[in-house]
C-alpha cells in the first residue's frame, strides 16, 4: 500500500515554538518519502487544530499520521479520537514528543530544531509500518475493593454502594475508622470527630453491599483492570463477632498488658480487648502477639469466663480469593516517629507528646476522658508549648515536604487547651502559618485573639528536663531574641508519613510511590486520584498529606472514577500487545519469567500471549535474545527504522 502520511507540528503556544523552528520541521518533513501533508499550527489540540487534522485526513486520503507535539500521556487519546473521526484507524496515529523531550530541555534553537526533526521523522518511519488495530473488548467485574478503612476508605465504600456496586472493604486493624477515630474535635468547626465518623462507621456495618474484612490484608493480586483476582488474608478470628456480646468479662481476667495503640501508647490494654467502645465490628478481639501463646494449658482464662463461648483458640488465618473490577487504595498515614526528634526530647520525656497523643488527651473517649493532664504526674499543665513543623520541611534531617495539616491542628490544639485550661498559657513555635482553606485563616486568628495563644516565629533548638519542667530553648526571629520557656508539656506537630505497609501494598498492587514514599498519582494535575496502574485509584493521606475535607473529597472522587469505570458493559483494552513470531521461539521461557503481568505461557513449547492480560510494556521483547517476540506497532522493524531515522 502506498504510504500517505500526514505530519502535524504543534507550536503549543510558545512552549514548543520558542525553542523549535516548527515551520522548518513541517517544511522539511514534507519532503520525506511518503509524507503527503505536513503543516504546523499554534494549538493542534484546540478545536480548529483538531478540525484541521480531520480535514487533512479526508482531503489527502491519509493512511498514517504523526502529531508532533507534547507527551503522548497528555494527548495521544485526543488525537487518536480525532483520527477515528477522520475515518483513519486510531492506531495509525502516533505522537512525536517534541515538547518534554525536546523544546523544554534545550535552549539552542538550531540544535532543538534538528532534534525535533529527527524525533518526528522517527515517528513518521514508525507509523508507516503501523498496523490498523481494533481495541480488545474485555468483560467487567462490577465489584470494587477498598483497601484501608479510615475515613477515606469508608467514604469511598459508601459512595460505591450508593451507585449499586458491591464493595469489599479491607482493614488491617481490628476496627474501621483509622486515624480519624482517635481525634477529639476537628478544625475549623470543632465538631467532635467521633460524632461525625461513627454514623458513617455504622452505615458501613449495616450496609449489605459492603463485605467488611477487618484484621485483613491484601496478599497478592493478578489480572487487570476490570478483572482483578485479589487474595485477601484474614488473621485468625479467635473471638467470634457474631457471638461476642461485649460483656467485658474477658478483659479483667487477662494477665497480659501491652501499650494500647488506639490510645497511642498513653494507656495499656489487655491481650483480649476492644479497640474502642464504638468499634466496628462491635466485638472484642484477641491480639495474637500479646496473648500467652494461644495455648489453653498456659492461660485460657478468657475462654473460661466467656459465657457464650465466643472464644476459640484453634482458629486459623484464612485466605480468600475475590474477583474485583477496580480498587481504591486508602491506606492512610502514620505520624513521623517521635524517636527521630531527640533534640525535642521525643520518646525520652513522658510529657513530650505527639499530635495524636494530645488528641487522645483531649478526647472524651481517651484515657483521661477529655481532661488534659501530664502523663508523668497527672497534673494539669499550666504552660504548654506546641512545636510546628516537627520533622516536616527539613530536607537535611527529616522529611522535605510540608505536612499541610499541622498549622491547623496545632491552632486547634491550642484552642482546645484553652477551653480545658482557661488559666493556662499556650505557645506555638512556627516557621510560617499555612491556613489555606475555607474558614481556616479565621480559625487561626481566633486562636490568637480570643484564646491568647502566643505565636512565636522561629524554631526550637532543644527541649530538656529541669526541675520537673521541660525547658524549651527557642528563638523568636520577629523580635530577634532567644526564648526560654519553662513548660509543663510539649506537643510536637509531627510530620505525616505514609502508613507502615504502604511500600508493601504498593509493591503488591504494582503501583508506584513518590520520592517521599506516598502513593504516586498518574498525573499531578489531571489524574490526581488515578494510580499509574489502570483500575487502581488513590484516596486520602496515603497519596499525600491532607486533612479530612480533602480526604473525603478525594475518596468520593476515587469512588466516582470507579463507578464510571465499572458502569461500562465492556472495557476496551489496548491492542498494542505482544505477538510471538513462532518459528523463532525456542521456548526458553525468559519472556514468561520477565512478564510482569503473567500474560505469557508456553503452549506446545512456544510462548503464547494472553492479549487481555498483556499491557504491551515490551519487557518480553527486551529479554528475548532471539527477537522472537514483538509488541504490535513497536516491532523490531519499526525500532530499526526509528533508529535509522535518528542516526541518519
Amino acid at each position, binding site marked *: 500500500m502506498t504510504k500517505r502520511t500526514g505530519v502535524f507540528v504543534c507550536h503549543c503556544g510558545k512552549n514548543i515554538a520558542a525553542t523549535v523552528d516548527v515551520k522548518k520541521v513541517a517544511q522539511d518533513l514534507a519532503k520525506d518519502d511518503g509524507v503527503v501533508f505536513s503543516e504546523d499550527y499554534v494549538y493542534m489540540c484546540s478545536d480548529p487544530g483538531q478540525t484541521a487534522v480531520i480535514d487533512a485526513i479526508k482531503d489527502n486520503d491519509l493512511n498514517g499520521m504523526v502529531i508532533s507535539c507534547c507527551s503522548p500521556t497528555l494527548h495521544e487519546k485526543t488525537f487518536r479520537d480525532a483520527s477515528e473521526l477522520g475515518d483513519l484507524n486510531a492506531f495509525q496515529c502516533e505522537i512525536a514528543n517534541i515538547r518534554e523531550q525536546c523544546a523544554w530541555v534545550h535552549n539552542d534553537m538550531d540544535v532543538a530544531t534538528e532534534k525535533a526533526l529527527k524525533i518526528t521523522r522517527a515517528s513518521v518511519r514508525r507509523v508507516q509500518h503501523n498496523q490498523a488495530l481494533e481495541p480488545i473488548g474485555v468483560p467487567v467485574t462490577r465489584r470494587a475493593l477498598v483497601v484501608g478503612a479510615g475515613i477515606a476508605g469508608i467514604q469511598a465504600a459508601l459512595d460505591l454502594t450508593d451507585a449499586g456496586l458491591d464493595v469489599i472493604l479491607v482493614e488491617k486493624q481490628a476496627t474501621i475508622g483509622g486515624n480519624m477515630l482517635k481525634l477529639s474535635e476537628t478544625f475549623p468547626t470543632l465538631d467532635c470527630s467521633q460524632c461525625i465518623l461513627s454514623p458513617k462507621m455504622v452505615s458501613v456495618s449495616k450496609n449489605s453491599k459492603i463485605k467488611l474484612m477487618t484484621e485483613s490484608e491484601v496478599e497478592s493480586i493478578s489480572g487487570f483492570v476490570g478483572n482483578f483476582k485479589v487474595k485477601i488474608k484474614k488473621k485468625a478470628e479467635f473471638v467470634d463477632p457474631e457471638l461476642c456480646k461485649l460483656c467485658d468479662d474477658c478483659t479483667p481476667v487477662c494477665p497480659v498488658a501491652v501499650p494500647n495503640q488506639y490510645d497511642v501508647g498513653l494507656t495499656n490494654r489487655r491481650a483480649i480487648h476492644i479497640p474502642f467502645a464504638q468499634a466496628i465490628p462491635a466485638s472484642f478481639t484477641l491480639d495474637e502477639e500479646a496473648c500467652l501463646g494461644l495455648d489453653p494449658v498456659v492461660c485460657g482464662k478468657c475462654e473460661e469466663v466467656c459465657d457464650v463461648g465466643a472464644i476459640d483458640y484453634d482458629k486459623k488465618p484464612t485466605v480468600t480469593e475475590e474477583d474485583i473490577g477496580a480498587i481504591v487504595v486508602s491506606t492512610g498515614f502514620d505520624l513521623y516517629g517521635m524517636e527521630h526528634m531527640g533534640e525535642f526530647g521525643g520518646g525520652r520525656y513522658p510529657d513530650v507528646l505527639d499530635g495524636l497523643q494530645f488528641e487522645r488527651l483531649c478526647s472524651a473517649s481517651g484515657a483521661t476522658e477529655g481532661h488534659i493532664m501530664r502523663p508523668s504526674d497527672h497534673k494539669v499543665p499550666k504552660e504548654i508549648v506546641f512545636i510546628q513543623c516537627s520533622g516536616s520541611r527539613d530536607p537535611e534531617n527529616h522529611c522535605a515536604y510540608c505536612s499541610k495539616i499541622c498549622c491547623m491542628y496545632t491552632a486547634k490544639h491550642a484552642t482546645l487547651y484553652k477551653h480545658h485550661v482557661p488559666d493556662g498559657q499556650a505557645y506555638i513555635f512556627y516557621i510560617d502559618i499555612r491556613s489555606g482553606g475555607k474558614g481556616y485563616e479565621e480559625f487561626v486568628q481566633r486562636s490568637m485573639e480570643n484564646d491568647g495563644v502566643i505565636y512565636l516565629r522561629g524554631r526550637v533548638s532543644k527541649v530538656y528536663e529541669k526541675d520537673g519542667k521541660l525547658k524549651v530553648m527557642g528563638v523568636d526571629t520577629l523580635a530577634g531574641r532567644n526564648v526560654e520557656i519553662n513548660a509543663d508539656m510539649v506537643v510536637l506537630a509531627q510530620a505525616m508519613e505514609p502508613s507502615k505497609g504502604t511500600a508493601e501494598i504498593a*509493591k503488591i498492587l504494582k503501583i508506584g510511590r513518590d520520592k517521599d514514599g506516598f502513593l504516586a498519582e498518574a498525573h499531578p494535575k489531571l489524574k490526581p486520584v488515578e494510580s499509574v496502574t489502570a483500575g487502581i485509584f488513590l484516596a486520602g493521606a496515603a497519596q499525600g498529606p491532607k486533612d479530612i475535607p480533602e480526604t473525603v473529597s478525594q475518596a468520593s472522587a476515587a469512588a466516582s472514577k470507579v463507578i464510571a469505570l465499572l458502569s461500562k458493559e465492556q472495557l476496551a483494552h489496548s491492542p498494542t500487545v505482544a505477538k510471538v*513470531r513462532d518459528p*523463532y521461539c*525456542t521456548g*526458553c521461557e*525468559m519472556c514468561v519469567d*520477565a512478564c510482569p503481568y503473567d500474560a505469557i505461557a508456553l503452549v506446545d513449547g512456544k510462548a503464547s500471549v494472553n492479549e487481555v492480560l498483556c499491557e504491551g510494556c515490551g519487557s518480553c521483547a527486551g*529479554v528475548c535474545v532471539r527477537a522472537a517476540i514483538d509488541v504490535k506497532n513497536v516491532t523490531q522493524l519499526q525500532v*530499526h527504522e526509528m533508529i535509522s531515522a535518528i542516526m541518519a
Partner: protein
Amino acid sequence: MVNVEEIRDYAASLLEKEEVKAVLGFRRGSASAFAEPCTITEVGEAASLVWDPTCLNNLALYLVKDRKQQAVAKTPDNRPVGIVAKGCDSRAVGVLLQENFFKREDVVVIGVSCEGTGVVDSNKLSDKLKGKTASRITFSGADDINVSVYGDETETVIPAQEILADRCLECRAATPTLHDVVFGDTVEARDFNEPFHAAKEAESASEDERWATWEHHFDRCLRCFACRAVCPMCYCHECVVDSTTFVVTLGTSAEEKANRIRWCERSANTSESAVYHLTRAIHLAGRCIDCGECERVCPVNIPLRLLNTKLEKEAFEMFEYQAGHDIEQASLLSSFRDEDPNSFIR
C-alpha cells in the same frame, strides 16, 4: 584420581540397559595427542572412551545438535543421551535446562571432576615444548601434568599453572554440580588464579588502550562464525546479527520477508564485526558458562573469552548470578529481585 575404566563401564551399562540411545564422550584422536569427541552407540565402543587433560571440547554442543536434528526428523528418536561432562560442560547442560531446551530426563550427565587441574591450552603447550609435538598428555594426579613428546617417551612433568587453559585456572567449580553420577574427587577450591583474573587484568588498561586492543581484534575477525558454531548457547534458529538463516514458514507474511531486518551486515569490517561480537556477548550475559570454546576455535586468536567473562563478572558482582549453577533459578536477563541494587526498577 579418575579411573577411566569406571567411565567406560558406566557408559557401557547405560547402553546395555538401553537407558540412553548414545553416549557423548572423548576418544583418542587420530591426528595428535589431543582427544576428540565421539558418539558411542554400541556397548563395545565404550572401551575406546578416554579421559585426560586433552578432553577440551564442550560436548553439550552435540546435545543441542541432536535436539535440533530430532526436531526436524521424520521419525524423531527422543531417547535420552548420555554425556561425559566436566564442570563447565555440566553448567552448559544446566543453562540449556534452565532455558527449556530439553528436559532433565532427556540427558544422563556422567560427571567427571577435573580435580586439581583441568584441560591444557594447546598454544601454551606448543610454547612450552618449543616446536616439538606432544605424543601423550596425562594427569599426574597432583597439580601438574605429564607430557611426553614424539621421539622421546620419557614423561616431563609440567606444573598445571603453566599449561592449563585460562578458564581452568580461574575455574570455581571443577566438579560438576549437575550430574547423575560423578567420577573423581570433589574439589572445592584450587590454588590457581582468582576468578575473573584475566578479565580483571584486561580491565586495568586505560579506555584508549582497551579500545585500541579491541579495534585491532575486531579488525582481524574473519567472520567465519566458528565462535557461534561451537557455542552450545548459540542455538537460535536465526541469529539476530546474521540473518542468512531467515526462517520462512507458512505463517511468514510477505511484509516480514520484505522487511527482514539486518541489524548487522555480514561483511568483515571492523564496525560490523564489533557489532557482531558485542551483540553476541550481550546475548550470552548470564548464559556463558566459560567453557572457552569460542576462544579455542578462533582461527585468528581473538580473546573472546574476555568479552564473555567480563559480563559474567558483572553478573556475579551485581546480582550474585552464576550461569548454570542452579537450574531452578530464573535466568539473569528475565528476572529481577526487589533488593536489586538499581533503584529505577522499583
